[in-house]
């Protein structure tokens, strides 16, 4: 059972990393606009430049349907 002596602290350390990540996200205002975040994810105007990959994707889908 000696393995617990470093495994348990290690587990808590990982939890602590999670806590620090949350505190950081709180401090940098990630939770200031929750409704906005839900909306922004639907905004796809940022991928308009990447049109060729979108076409490629639909092409493969088309091919798959043929098979």
């Amino acid at each position, binding site marked *: 059972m000696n393995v617990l002596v470093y495994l*348990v602290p290690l587990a808590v350390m990982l*939890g602590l990393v999670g806590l620090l990540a949350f505190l950081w996200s709180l401090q940098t205002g990630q939770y200031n606009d929750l409704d906005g975040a839900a909306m922004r994810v639907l905004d796809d105007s940022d991928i308009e430049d990447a049109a060729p990959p979108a076409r490629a994707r639909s092409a493969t889908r088309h091919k798959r349907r043929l098979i």
Partner: protein
Amino acid sequence: MTAPCCPPGEVIVPAGDVDLDHYLTPVGEGLAHIDLAVDGMHCAACIRTVESGLAALPGVVRARVNFTLHRVGVDVEAAVDPATLLGKLAELGYPARPYEAKTVEAATERELKQLLRALAVAGFAAMNIMLLSVSVWAGNASDITSETRDFFHWFSALIALPAAAYAGQPFFRSAFAALRARRLNMDVPISLGVSLALGVSLYETAIHAHDTYFDSAIMLLFFLLAGRVLDLVARRKTRALAGNLAALRADTAERIGDDGRTHTVPAAALAIGDRILVRPGDRVAVDGRVIAGASHVDQSLVTGETVPSAVAAGDTVYAGALNQGGTLTLEVAAAEGGSLIDEVERLLDKASQARSQRLRLADRAAALYAPMVHLTAAVAAIGWLVAGAGIHQAILVATAVLIITCPCALALAIPAVQVAAAGALFRKGIFLNAGDAIERLAEADTIVFDKTGTLTRPEPGIVNEAAIPPRLLAAAARLALSSHHPLAGALVARARGEAPFDNVVEQPGEGLRAIVDGVEARLGSPAFCGIAAAADDGPGTHLAFRHGEETALMEIRQVLRPDAAAAVAGLRRRGFDCRIISGDREAAVATAAAAVGISDFAAAQTPADKIARLEALAAEGRRVAMVGDGLNDAPALAAAHVSLSPISAVDLAQSHADAIFLGDRLMPVVEAVDVCRRGRRLMTQNLWFAAVYNTLAVPLAVFGIVTPLIAALAMSASSLTVTLNALRALAPMAAARPHNRIDAHEPVPA
């Protein structure tokens, strides 16, 4: 890409060039920041349109929308005029106003962040300690070695003690403050329970015992903090959106500079001693003394009096008054010397003091609960001592009692309902200023209305419409389009979509004239149109129209809200005793009272009279809900058991009302009563549930049967149950028409 749900709205041209530099806050390096409250954002594309529209303007460094709060924060180069930002937004179809964060809001924001940090720490600690505790519970039942158990307990202590020291601060501070004031509040047994549990657990760990209470103590803090966070989150959102609405209707004033020229500035930028110009048809933005000019002003928002009063040099004019006559020059004055303002302030002080002594449901429960908890724990400990147990055993039992009775369920029972009910009200266009308004409105049995602006619409309308030929009315309305005089506003609504006449001449203080079909048409005061008016009602209550030889005399009065009578009837059905207490004249009040079907009314009441009447009603044992909007209602709103204001109310009235409702209708009052009564029912259910839970669990604790495992299970189960029950406050709303568009333009002018 185009906006799928939001076609470009009607383009609203911002009124004049307002000097908005007051709202810019420098952020260093030649940059400045400004917050704008934006109306009409509904979808992802709106966010995109607003942000890219603003970012495309020269000098704009960054624009970021906060969709939750309907605001956009913009960083600009210091030389940029904020008016260009507003112009751009108006062009895009999103009317906006600069927003100045209020100190209350900033404080709430700070408190919320602090609570969230504490909640995160407590949650982290609770999860990790529970991990260790479950291992110990399982090990105790099988074959854990005492070394491993001790290691787990010491490690739990290492996590629990710093976490409790940080996350428990809100409770420790409040308990300490209460004790210093020689009172008991809910935080005293919480603090005592947590510290005792931690202390006992540390001792148990040192003597290599089988069980500790580290997990219970931390979990307790976690649930209690969750209750506080919920409470604050609900208040924050409604407060922020109510603030936006205030900003969207913020007043501007024309300040006369040293060089004699006028600049339009926001009212917030005015200082005492500034001179401002108030043109006919303008609303006075600040309190001031007339130094030049004479006019008559409609003070209905201030005093409830619907007949305009004459003012001349030396008279005091209050914010909210509407100038209906000639141009006035005012000197901005503090509210000194104004007998009405002085009286209102004095009455407000008194009423607010009385209100702070009122006990909330949660506090009443706490006052009953806290001593009982302490007593039970003490009796249990003494009982075990008398029965021959050791001190160690007795303290363990007392700790178990404190933990099991700790008011997790109680602390969540009320905030959880408040959040759910506030959300339901919010969707109906009702904002709560105070969380405990729900329980107070549910208790009310008598409702007192102000007349002007509350039962009636905030804007006047035409009373004798039937007597006027429709053709004349239509022509008058079209002519009225060219005027921004408040009386013309009553007509303008009828001419939507029509083009104004050409070559209209406005004669300030008299009226408009234009050539229509080759004949001169005039709209304005009866004298201007050459009509003899019934002079008994004073100036500003009649609007005359002459087209060639045809004439019409329109009587402009306050008109009732369209559903006023229905709302009053609805309140009656719910068992309310409805009354009117107004500052207006007897005849006007009697007419309105008859129209809505209220027989019990009082007219010509001063603010002090209103309070006296409310106190008389309270002395009869009634709980009075007050609905009012004027400056003269503010003390009564603060003195009543609970109070509501329409969004058109003056700021002072709004800040003392418990709830504010949007729109042109009075029905929100009835809807608010329904939601609050349901909320109150759920609160009572939750409190009863907590009581039953305690009567079941306490005997277990007293007889020493409660193990840490049972404590942990009982605590989580009761907290979850009350939270789920509270969510039922939202449930019936699902069937109702969704009403989540918060539209500042909803109060349609009559």
